[in-house]
């Protein structure tokens, strides 16, 4: 049904999206916690910087990444010395996706952490828990629906990421050519319309699937966390 090229494109897209989410999740959680519970000078600035990828043209983000992490970039040079190359590799595509999806992930997590009464953590402390223990036994489980929502939003965003990826790691079949990049390449090729349409259809199915899975997981997490279905439909 699917050609091997199509399977390869989808497998690569899923791999890139998965690793972009997996690698950025702990950092996003830490930042969300900091923004939700912390009170420090420069909080507004941090908040704004986190949200930048949401408002900047993706091509700008991709270009910054290229300048920073490219072979001649300050960070890229350092990484190359220890044998890590991200420019024009699938890992670079994952980094681009992670940066683009980061604000979405932080936002969802932050909202769910802010909804948790910090007094519950104080109660946990009177029962012998340290701050960290209270976080892992009370705050994190209660924030789980938000964490899942954030992760899946970022995952869906990664599946659709185009501008930053193509600018940073180019459009290399088998290495950095994710689904949107492949569709773009086909539309630029004479006679590629039919193949492009097939990939578009696959893209719709994939995104829809991701959203449905997300909905299901969040509902289940809410039931497990609160013992009832707490997701109100706004």
């Amino acid at each position, binding site marked *: 049904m699917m050609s091997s090229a199509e399977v390869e494109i989808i497998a690569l897209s899923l791999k890139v999206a998965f690793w972009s989410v997996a690698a950025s999740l702990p950092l996003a959680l830490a930042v969300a916690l900091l923004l939700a519970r912390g009170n420090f000078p420069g909080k507004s600035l941090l908040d704004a910087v986190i949200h930048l990828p949401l408002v900047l043209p993706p091509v700008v983000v991709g270009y910054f990444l290229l300048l920073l992490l490219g072979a001649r970039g300050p960070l890229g040079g350092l990484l190359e010395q220890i044998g890590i190359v991200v420019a024009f590799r699938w890992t670079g595509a994952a980094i681009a996706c992670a940066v683009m999806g980061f604000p979405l992930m932080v936002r969802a997590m932050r909202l769910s952490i802010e909804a948790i*009464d910090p*007094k*519950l953590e*104080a*109660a*946990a*402390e*009177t*029962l*012998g*828990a*340290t701050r960290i*223990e209270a976080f892992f*036994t*009370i705050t994190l*489980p*209660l924030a789980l629906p938000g964490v899942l929502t954030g992760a899946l939003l970022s995952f869906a965003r990664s599946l659709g990421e185009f501008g930053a990826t193509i600018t940073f790691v180019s459009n290399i079949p088998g290495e950095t050519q994710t689904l949107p990049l492949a569709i773009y390449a086909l539309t630029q090729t004479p006679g590629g319309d039919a193949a492009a349409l097939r990939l578009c259809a696959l893209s719709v199915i994939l995104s829809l699937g991701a959203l449905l899975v997300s909905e299901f997981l969040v509902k289940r997490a809410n039931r*497990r*966390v*609160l*013992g*009832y279905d707490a997701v109100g439909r706004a």
Partner: protein
Amino acid sequence: MTLSVALKHEVGAFRLDAAFTCGDGVTALFGPSGAGKTTLVNAIAGLLRPDQGRIELDGEALFDAGKKIHIPARERRFGYVFQEGRLFPHLTVRQNLTYSRWFRSGARPQADLDHIVGLLGIGELLERRPAQLSGGEGQRVAIGRALLARPRLLLLDEPLASLDAHRRNEILQYLELLRDEVKIPVVYVSHSVEEVVRLASTVVLIASGKVAAVGEVEEIMGRPDLRAAAGVFEGGTVIDARVVAQDIQYDLATLAFDGGSLTVTNLDALIGESVRVRIRARDVSIALDAPQRISIQNVLRGKISNIGTDSSGIVDVSIAVGAVTLRSRITRRAVQQLALAPGLEVYALIKAVSLDRH
């Protein structure tokens, strides 16, 4: 156990400057809302770091601003029952009760759990989630959770405030049971006279951030001068009595105390049981002769020991009835008309229906 607290703390325009010492049994931090009771108890628990002062338990400093000592809440081993329960919504009742086990080891955890669950009557609720509990059930679980952490001291911050009168009475019965069964010192925050009289042995009266008085519950509740300071309760007399007879036909009970007996209405206690009765000063009338043909059921003979010198129209009169000093609140005109004076033999009249049930 001896807990001594001396601290100063400022929150916005509010200043707390309180010092008191308390021991075993139930100590009530009593005073009107906004007097600083919760701030005080949070400082004792270690959830709040006061600006200045020292908190000490049996000589061990829990907090000392000068020496920069602040033992964190988790290491103080104080159980804390919050006004709003604060059960963990994602855990079952059983998991809430045993939460402290993850961090503290007890000697016989299962036996403890069974004992506390039995005492509080929450065996049926163990597999439920907090969202499926009523307010009263939730507070019982919260009390159990605090007790199962094997605390050295139990802090209760208005645990009945969010409950209706019926639930409040139910939890009060459990708290009385705990006071008598579990030998843990308790600091009980409340603005309710009824709760304090029923549970406490020592009262620390808090008014606008300061300690207005410390003393035995009978003493504090009897002092009319503290009424203004507290602004929440009217003077009266607390009497420890014992149920000696019950009249089922009329739904009355007879209580004996050091100085006589009292008839009260539908008391929820058995013969032989100890009860505490609070008689409001304004419910006590004074007569010079034993009254005839009168509906009042309680006529106690006594001797006036003191007459208040308040310049207003209202005067508080103390009457010694046996070992008990009964407070009566009457008008200044009545004092003059009857020519009341210390040493005079009088009859104190108390309507049976005016007595608070404790």
